[in-house]
């Protein structure tokens, strides 16, 4: 009997009606809705006029920001932060070996030094007029290049960090220069967490190539007295 109900249902002639007027009216109304929802020709243009206007305003604002940031002179503090940031980006790409070479050159931890500079409140670029440019590598060697503050009555030696053992406490030397650095090296200055003035040099490849610090009395007093102090006197 189940088969017969199946047969009956299969054999039924089902009605197939047409409602052409309703179909056309409904289509018309659907297309009107379509236009409102997704934008037909006019709504599309209207919607996009606002989009283009918004885009235009944003573009003008963006151009303004770029102009202001590129054309206005940057302060030494901003420049210093940029230099340190570029150096940070550079050193993360270095191999372990390349990093060791650089660290032995500046006798300091690369990343730590840059982080320290970045966090210092007084990080700035040393003005060019305070720098004595020299030609590397002959004249520049961490072993014998030291820098002094100009015009200070109590002349203080500035020693390469990590190499303070070579300084001779209490040595007073007449000095006419400010900061000695190779050409192309950007020279930054900041105060480290221990209160010492630090000079950080970063070359054109964004590699930190020198780190010097101004030794204070207490630093000098803590130095071992047996070491020979190599000092190159600026003539």
């Amino acid at each position: 009997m189940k088969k017969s109900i199946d047969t009956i249902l299969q054999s039924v002639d089902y009605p197939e009606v047409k409602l052409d007027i309703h179909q056309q009216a409904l289509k018309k109304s659907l297309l009107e809705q379509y236009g409102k929802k997704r934008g037909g020709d006019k709504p599309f243009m209207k919607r996009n006029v606002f989009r283009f206007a918004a885009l235009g305003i944003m573009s003008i604002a963006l151009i303004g920001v770029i102009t202001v940031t590129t054309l206005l002179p940057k302060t030494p503090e901003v420049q210093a932060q940029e230099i340190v940031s570029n150096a940070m980006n550079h050193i993360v790409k270095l191999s372990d070996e390349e990093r060791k070479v650089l660290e032995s050159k500046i006798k300091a931890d690369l990343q730590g030094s840059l982080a320290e500079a970045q966090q210092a409140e007084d990080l700035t670029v040393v003005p060019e007029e305070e720098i004595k440019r020299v030609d590397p590598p002959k004249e520049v060697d961490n072993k014998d290049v030291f820098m002094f503050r100009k015009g200070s009555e109590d002349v203080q030696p500035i020693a390469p960090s990590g190499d303070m053992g070579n300084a001779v406490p209490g040595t007073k030397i007449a000095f006419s220069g400010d900061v000695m650095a190779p050409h192309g090296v950007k020279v930054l200055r900041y105060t480290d967490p221990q209160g010492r003035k630090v000079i950080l040099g970063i070359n054109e490849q964004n590699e930190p190539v020198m780190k010097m610090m101004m030794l204070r009395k207490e630093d000098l007093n803590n130095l071992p007295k047996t070491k020979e102090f190599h000092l190159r006197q600026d003539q």
Partner: protein
Amino acid sequence: MEIQYEKDLVERAKNDPDAFSELFDFYYPKILNYSLRRLGNIDVSKDITSQVFFKVLNKLPKFTWDISFSSWVYKIATNEIYDFYRSPKNKVTSLEYLQTVGFEPEDLHDIETELIAAEQEVERHQLFLEVQKHLLQLDLSYQEIISLKYFEKKKIKEIAEITGKKEGTVKSLLSRGLEKLRSLMLNTMDMQLNREKNVIKVKAE
């Protein structure tokens, strides 16, 4: 409609009213007649069909191909019919509803004439009306599946997509539904036979 062609058309219809028009023209008669066979009332079927296509229009941008487009449209229609049966408030003529969404019949008289012609067309199918009369006494889940299988000639897989049921469930619902429909029809036939016998008996006396 060829599957690939339909796929392209559906994707285009998301942003192209002409493509949407083509889809509408293809599916309108299918959904109208599906509703009519389910409900038996051309006026309500017309309104249900309108609601289905407004939903298709609104939901089309979010349509993904989890199921075929055809199954998706039928699913919307099936849900609309389900809501119609379940919610008495929907049992009003939806012309008001259509007017709220922008439907403006140009000539109500023409529509009425068209509906009368459609009713007459339905009335010509006496066997269908007989089956439908019994079918409407079944639970909605049986009605759905039997209608889709026999009225719309859908495969089990398609019915599963439309109703959101597993194919096994569809098969067992179909089997049980047919059994119930058969019983109902047999009872009616018995009652008719008995009635006819009684009439003959009375006449003989």
